[in-house]
């Protein structure tokens, strides 16, 4: 396995892994850093990877673990900084780190997904956005395939509960009309606040 092979791996999978992390994280810079770290770890471990390994699933697992660790350390940090940040954003009138929050352009689904517990959120994104099978999701989340299925089910249930009362057919139409060009992908516009 030479360097070319790893370059091919980057070319093939970077876009998807970045998109996955972008969907899970609050800020674009976090997704950039985590996807870089994912591939640097992969690079170091690449030569020990068996030839028949499922590279895509392997990368998702690395990315997911990094994201989970990131959330844990963010949580610890936020205990210290929450008060400071809140005070600053009130006085400054915008996001303290200069990240604009485009709430209005985010789809309702994305809003709900962002509030889901970690395992439900990752399981949902892995299954519904990246269409990984449940066995792979189970390995990624270190749980059984049944648990993975249950996480996705619970996520869908919560989304449905939240959307109860919304006119979903109308919503789809409005969203479609409200997004004129394909040049402005929703995920890029969906800067989020840190979700616990």
């Amino acid at each position, binding site marked *: 396995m030479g360097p070319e092979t790893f370059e091919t791996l980057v070319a093939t999978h970077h876009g998807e892994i970045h998109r996955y992390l972008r969907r899970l994280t609050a800020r674009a810079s976090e997704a*950039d850093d985590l*996807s870089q770290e994912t591939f*640097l770890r992969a690079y170091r471990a690449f030569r020990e990877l068996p030839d028949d390994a499922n590279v895509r699933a392997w990368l998702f697992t690395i990315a997911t673990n990094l994201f989970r660790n990131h959330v844990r350390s963010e949580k610890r940090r936020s205990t210290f900084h929450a008060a400071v940040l809140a005070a600053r954003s009130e006085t400054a009138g915008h996001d303290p780190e200069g990240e604009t929050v485009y709430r209005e352009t985010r789809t309702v689904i994305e809003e709900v997904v962002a509030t889901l517990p970690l395992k439900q959120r990752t399981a949902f994104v892995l299954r519904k956005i990246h269409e990984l099978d449940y066995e792979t999701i189970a390995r990624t989340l270190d749980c059984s395939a049944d648990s993975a299925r249950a996480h996705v089910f619970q996520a869908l249930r919560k989304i449905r509960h939240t959307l109860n009362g919304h006119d*979903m057919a109308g919503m*789809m139409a409005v969203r479609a009309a409200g997004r004129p060009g394909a040049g402005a992908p929703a995920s*890029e516009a969906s800067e989020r606040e840190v979700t616990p």
Partner: protein
Amino acid sequence: MNARHSGCVAIEADLVAAATGEAAPEATRRVEEHVEHCGPCREDFGRYRAIEGLVGRLRATVSDDTEARERLIARLGDLRRRRLRYGVFPSPLGPLLIGRTDDGVSLVQYLGPEGDVRRSLLGRRPELDAVEDSLAVEAFYRELLEYLEGRRSHLEWPLDLRLARSEFHRGVLRATAAIPYGAVCSYAGIASEIGKPTASRAVAQALRWNPLPIVVPCHRVVGSSGALVGYAGDKVGLKRRLLALEGVMRAEGARVPRATMYVSLPREQCYCLPTCTWIPTADDPHRFFFFGSRERAEAAGLTPCGDCRPDLHPLASS
């Protein structure tokens, strides 16, 4: 949901699966039968279908990873240049580890008789990103073997001094690399050469941590009295062997016989007898190379001094 019939609760998982296209045919049929006569569940089924549609749209969105990808590729290029490829080879001095990066040879290490890489620098510094690749260093090994067998006097390899511990250490290693084959210089001489004439002990420390023994010939640096002093921790025996190989001293000697060696000054074109009037004794007495024989001095590109004429009056020992 709580107010619903228990049948609705029981079928909910299948209903979600059927609405999102994940149910087995049998479950789908059960769900279809159920929603036909259960209004609330029919509504839910419709909502899940709508959610599936909305999610499908999310699936189609892309994120612009161009900048992140470019940054990653730059980092990977950097890592690749730093990656240390190494091999372990047998030699007359025991197993030797030779490692290189894209920039040059970066590590030569004497392994114990068991040749255990885990006890080498690589074992202690896992962040070095080392990968065994004997082919990448085999050419270096062959030349090193020729040197150790006395068939080669120059190892003109590109050096990568990144494993040296500091810029000062790198300066010491560069000055040491300039000592010709078959010559010795003192620690004080190296200190003087790098512009720190009082730093002999620091020079000795820098050479103790030389990541490239043999290639950066720290064995050619001896005490001002000619004593061998030390080598690679406790391997003075190896130092003696290498100096004997280069014709500087006898294999059983305890010190380099400086008083009976030819002398040259760095950057000078000629070599002299130790008694030559050109050799300053009081002023900066350490910056000399001492050669064990005229052949070695001349192999280093030096010509006999026109005053003391070492060619006409060779030293008794040579």
